[in-house]
């Protein structure tokens, strides 16, 4: 088992991320180096220029809001100028700018302009490092999850993030599918399952037909802009409004630090209300009251009832999307054999109740909503690299979430591959020249539901050039649109008459260009060199520390016999053991700094042992 190289599954969430693996046939979550299962998907650059990830980044978010990037998942693969990005700009405390081509979104972080995949890559690299510390060996391959409703650009950018983080992304899989996989793993069930996944930033619903170990997705739906953060924002708006009313129109949104505290308090109160009927929101010294006046405090009581009233339409939207997805799949609520709740937001009693009322059955509580997605990803990763026990081979049959098509004359959208088509899949389309000696054809490829091309997401423009000259209508180019198991779109073209491959140039994508990706990877290589230096430093310190440990161990029998005769220092052995355990831990975590700290302790222990073994007087303070 352990001869195989370790593989991991990563749930790269809007608010939190989780990494998991399959060990001895059992999927399990890998704790991070802080000992926690959830790592906040937050990246920051501290005032001293240090890069912070996860809990460390979250802890300083209040005092360093402008250089703390959260919810990057909402921006990944998005087009600059899109409605979603414009909305996000309104409430994100960090600054967004357009990419060099004007297509994608970048953030200003620590005085640098950083692409979103790079931000996500920092989180992925952190999880990779956590896994490496846990396995005690390098990890290179991973399955990463995305919301089922993510389009090609968002998937591609997520895959780029994996590459930047130094991971080979074996597969991008859909979060609800992943959840179903974890739910059904090893149970040999045969039924229709609905996964209701309301996470931090996105809402997904998927319907699967599980036949023993084959997971056949029969329908997906969702809203990439509906999640826990919208619920938080409702509370924030309510608090901001009430605060302005009570304090003569003071607008909290003008103060970034206050806004961040408000956001944290809103999220916390929402979580509290999942178990308590009412909660107090208390934020002392929130903003200054103006010249000559004291600071203003916020003190509010929020009841569950009020929260439900504030977010009523959000819950209704979830149910409407669920209903549409079920109808598209030709299913009635009563035909569903199980409903699985995924995502932290499903802890809200009103959400669970709405699901129960719609399906007329109690949703499954057998899976942990925060961990289940990562566990499923780990199962899939394992299935893609390791031979499976006979009869239990896991197989995912996922579908495309949106129609894939082309812009045709008149600005209409012509579907080439309809949504809910099982992937991998492909379709060919014939293009004929419309002018004499036409040398190029421009094809706009889009994804979406609208009949009007401009209302759909533009994946990119493909330019077929170098077409052989001929009379109009005489030259036909066969273009193949393929969607991989990752849900990523590929386009290839062929001259029908000659069979020659046709060159394709892709422009106007919403992600990183290949050149840019290369540049980033090159920069990383430089960083790797730096890291190698730190590796050398680590190895040096480790060897020194281990030498000390060996010497201490060597003195141990002499010290023990010396102590038997002495009334003093009975706990010396125990103290030494504690120090040595800490050293070993620091070595396992490959933390040179921590070893350095322990080195001093080791030195003192060794001196003590030497003194005791020699039977001499105890050193002062020993």
């Amino acid at each position: 088992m352990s001869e195989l190289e370790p593989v991991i599954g990563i749930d790269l969430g809007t608010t939190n991320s989780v990494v998991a693996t399959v060990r001895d046939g059992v999927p399990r979550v890998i704790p991070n180096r802080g000992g926690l299962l959830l790592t906040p998907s937050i990246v920051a650059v501290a005032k001293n220029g240090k890069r912070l990830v996860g809990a460390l980044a979250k802890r300083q978010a209040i005092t360093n809001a402008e250089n703390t990037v959260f919810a990057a998942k909402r921006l990944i693969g998005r087009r600059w100028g899109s409605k979603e990005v414009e909305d996000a700009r309104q409430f994100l405390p960090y600054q967004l700018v357009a990419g060099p081509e004007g297509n994608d979104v970048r953030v200003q972080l620590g005085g640098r302009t950083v692409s979103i995949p790079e931000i996500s890559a920092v989180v992925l690299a952190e999880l990779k490092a956590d896994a490496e510390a846990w396995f005690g060996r390098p990890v290179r391959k991973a399955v990463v999850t995305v919301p089922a409703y993510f389009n090609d650009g968002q998937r591609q950018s997520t895959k780029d993030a994996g590459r930047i983080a130094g991971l080979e992304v074996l597969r991008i899989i859909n979060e609800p599918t992943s959840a179903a996989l974890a739910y059904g793993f090893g149970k040999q069930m045969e039924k229709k399952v609905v996964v209701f996944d309301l996470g931090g930033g996105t809402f997904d619903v998927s319907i699967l037909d599980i036949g023993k170990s084959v997971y056949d997705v029969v329908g997906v739906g969702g809203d990439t802009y509906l999640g826990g953060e919208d619920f938080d924002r409702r509370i924030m708006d309510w608090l901001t409004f009430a605060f302005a009313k009570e304090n003569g129109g003071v607008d909290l949104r003008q103060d970034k630090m206050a806004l961040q505290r408000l956001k944290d308090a809103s999220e916390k109160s929402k979580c509290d209300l999942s178990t308590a009927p009412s909660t107090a929101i208390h934020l002392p010294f929130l903003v200054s009251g103006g010249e000559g006046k004291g600071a203003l405090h916020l003190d509010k009581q929020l009841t569950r009832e009020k929260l439900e009233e504030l977010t009523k339409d959000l819950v209704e939207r979830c149910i409407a999307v669920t209903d549409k997805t079920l109808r598209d799949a030709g299913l009635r609520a009563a035909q569903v054999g199980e409903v699985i709740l995924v995502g932290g937001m499903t802890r809200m009693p009103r959400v669970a109740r709405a699901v129960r009322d719609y399906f007329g059955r109690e949703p499954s509580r057998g899976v942990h909503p925060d961990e289940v997605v990562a566990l499923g990803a780990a199962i899939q990763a394992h299935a893609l690299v390791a031979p499976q026990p006979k009869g239990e081979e896991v197989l995912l049959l996922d579908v495309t979430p949106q129609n894939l098509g082309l812009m045709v004359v008149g600005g209409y959208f012509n579907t080439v591959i309809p949504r809910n088509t099982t992937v991998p899949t492909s379709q060919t389309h014939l293009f004929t020249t419309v002018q004499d000696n036409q040398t190029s054809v421009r094809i706009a490829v889009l994804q979406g539901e609208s009949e009007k091309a401009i209302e759909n997401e533009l994946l990119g423009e493909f330019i077929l050039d170098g077409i052989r000259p001929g009379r109009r209508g005489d030259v036909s180019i066969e273009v193949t649109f393929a969607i991989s198991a990752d849900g990523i779109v590929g386009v290839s073209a062929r001259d029908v008459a000659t069979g020659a491959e046709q060159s394709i140039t892709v422009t106007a994508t919403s992600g990183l260009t290949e050149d840019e990706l290369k540049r980033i990877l090159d920069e990383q290589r430089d960083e790797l060199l730096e890291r190698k230096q730190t590796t050398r430093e680590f190895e040096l310190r480790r060897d020194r520390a281990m030498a000390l440990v060996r010497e201490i161990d060597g003195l141990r029998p002499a010290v023990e016999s010396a102590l038997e005769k002495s009334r003093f220092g009975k706990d010396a052995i125990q103290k030494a053991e504690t120090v040595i355990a800490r050293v070993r831990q620091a070595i396992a975590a490959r933390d040179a700094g921590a070893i350095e700290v322990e080195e001093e302790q080791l030195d003192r222990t060794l001196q003590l042992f030497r003194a005791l073994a020699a039977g001499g007087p105890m050193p002062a303070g020993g």
Partner: protein
Amino acid sequence: MTDRYRGFTFDEAALREDVDIDVDRRREILFAEAQLQKWTLWELLGIPWNAPVEAAKAAYIEKVKVFHPDRYPAKRLGSYRARLERVFRRITEARDVLSDEGRRVPYVRQTAPPEQAAAMEARKLEDERRSEERRARLGRQNPLLQRVGRVKELVARGKHAFEEGKFLQAANDLQLALTMDPGNIEAATLVAEAKRKAAALKANDWFDKGQQFYVIGRMGEALSAFREALSSDSTHVRAAAYAARAALELGEVAEARSFAEQAVKAGPRVALAHESMGLVLEASGSKREAREALEKAIELDPRLESAKERLKKLRWSFLG
């Protein structure tokens, strides 16, 4: 086992390719790939013609276990990856077609074995004949259907009358049809139009009658005729305007005023209405307003001599 492949020549190069797939599986994949276009979707999934949807789905799952590339984890697949994907795509298409009611039915018919096809065609014709017969029989027996027939008849008659300009008759027929079948949209839309037109016709009749009395000075009869006209069509401007004058002649200034107001309201751009208003105002002593009303009337219709006369008098009296 080998009988399955009788008469089929395998691509030796593909059989010898350096990949991690055993020879039996290679044969299975190569054979399936070669049959993709030849086989019906039924044959592809290995199920009999017209097998139920559930059977198609179950067969698909079994086939997928062989032909999905993911079933060969960490194996070198070489050219077989593309072969597997081609077969996978086609069996997925087979499952999609055979489990979708809309696409399945034509496909069943299209792929029917000859004797089945003949039988199906015969059954289809028989079904059509029977349902025609059944409809006719039901029509004779069922009071509900009789009623449907009656509604149709009424709507047709109503439409005919409407076209001929017999709006009252049309309104009657259509209203009856609508009571029998409240959901009949055609009757509902037409009946409103017919009623409106019928009312307008009636109002015109009464107005003509009123005019006749008015010119011969029988103001009482004229006024009641105008009133009738207005009760059918309250927006009949001329009826209101003349009703105001008749009332004025009878010395009923208050009533005259309300008719004049009704006239102006129904026809703010009709000179006659403003002239009537001017007369009423003059009679009630509001000379300035009377003058304004008359000026308005002349502005709307410069040829209104009677109003000019009035205005001249009013100007004189104002000066005097």
